[in-house]
């Protein structure tokens, strides 16, 4: 199997045999990425602390009044949405909280995508399930996912609480009135953004649990 750019390096790479050198490079590269991810996560959690506080408090109040939480995202972020729903539903400690990931049902996703369009796969579910006091949290790295933006607009119309997670400069989620709380990871690496977002959602969950603990309700 040869790379399309292989013609640029005739014979040289084919003859490469120094596995030790490559392994050294790989270890160094991995260590650098691990370190970068850890520092970005710490910085992001620090920078987002006020938003996490405000969103966490508002969410705790909604949970206390029977509110439910809907998660959404695309691709790897869809799995992060599923992981977040698991964290809220089955927490390692604290109160289990009602959460649903809107990416879980292939019948609903493919029906909406096929019949209406992929831009509406989450908005239509928000319209169907969203009731007074519910909440929507969306994971995006670019902040540009059309189906998340449409769902946030639908949620805002229905007065659901909205929380957006985005990277880069927030894309179309930044300064968007439909996104009440924006948790921004200032990075341009999709992978590092997702890693920091998983730390943000844990912080948000911990903040919600903290506020629920203070209300003294079961």
């Amino acid at each position, binding site marked *: 199997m040869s790379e399309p750019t*292989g013609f640029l390096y005739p014979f040289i790479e084919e003859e490469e045999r120094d596995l030790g050198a490559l392994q050294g490079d790989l270890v160094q590269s991995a260590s650098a990425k691990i370190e970068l991810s850890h520092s970005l996560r710490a910085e992001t959690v620090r920078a987002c602390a006020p938003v996490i506080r405000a969103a966490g408090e508002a969410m705790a109040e909604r949970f206390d009044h029977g509110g439910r939480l809907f998660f959404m995202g695309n691709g790897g972020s869809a*799995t992060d949405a599923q992981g977040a729903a698991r964290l809220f539903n089955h927490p390692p400690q604290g109160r289990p909280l009602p959460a649903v990931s809107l990416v879980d049902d292939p019948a609903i996703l493919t029906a909406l995508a096929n019949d209406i369009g992929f831009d509406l796969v989450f908005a239509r579910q928000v319209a169907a399930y969203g009731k007074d006091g519910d909440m929507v949290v969306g994971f995006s790295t670019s902040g540009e996912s059309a189906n998340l933006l449409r769902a946030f607009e639908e949620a805002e119309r229905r007065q659901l609480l909205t929380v957006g997670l985005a990277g880069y400069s927030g894309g179309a989620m930044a300064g968007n009135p439909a996104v009440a709380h924006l948790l921004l990871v200032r990075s341009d690496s999709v992978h590092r953004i*997702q890693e920091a977002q998983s730390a943000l959602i844990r912080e948000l969950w911990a903040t919600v649990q903290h506020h629920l603990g203070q209300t003294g309700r079961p």
Partner: protein
Amino acid sequence: MRPEPLADALAAAAVAMARRFASGATMWCLSPAWPEHGRHLAVEFVHPVIVGKRALAARSVDPADVTDLLGLARSGDILALIGPVGPAADGLLRRARPRGLLTVALGPRPPSPSPSVDYVCTVDEPDLILAYHVLWELTHVVFEHPGLLKTGPATGPEACVTCSDQALPAEIRTLRPEGTAEALIDGRLQTVDVSLIDAARPGDVVLVHAGVAISSAIETTGAS
């Protein structure tokens, strides 16, 4: 930079995985406790976030369908295990090496039976996404070195048959008269001597040294 054991483990796994992918492997991703991580790992490889990186075959498997993997996976494929795998995957793990699968595990603790796992990357849950992202990134770095994709053993570090005391797991497929059997070793059918062990049956996994089965079945879930 402080030494990072996770970096070492990921680098070693990435070289082995890239070699398998270069030979046409599919990676089967299994995370019984945290299924979303199995899906996330698979989508990283199938639909790279960096434009221009090649798409590699990867597929997550529903935890309820663990045994389906024995039919789906082919010799040369990769089995990626994330997080606690539980007893449901024990049989799969014991058959992985006889069937020629490379196994890579990521999680807080090595899965048991851990000797069946080729590469173990020990990582706590908050760093799990980071770990498989880096694994993807490193795998593609290895792809930039085609000369190194072809060399080295085709299987994991513990499968070296030149070592004097090496016993290999073998899955018995067909019993033959005179105390021999056709058995899968490292994905290839070979004739082994089963006269020293008791009541071997098709489907049993036994340990084989120098063509002779030296242990009774370490896995007996029947033929498949």
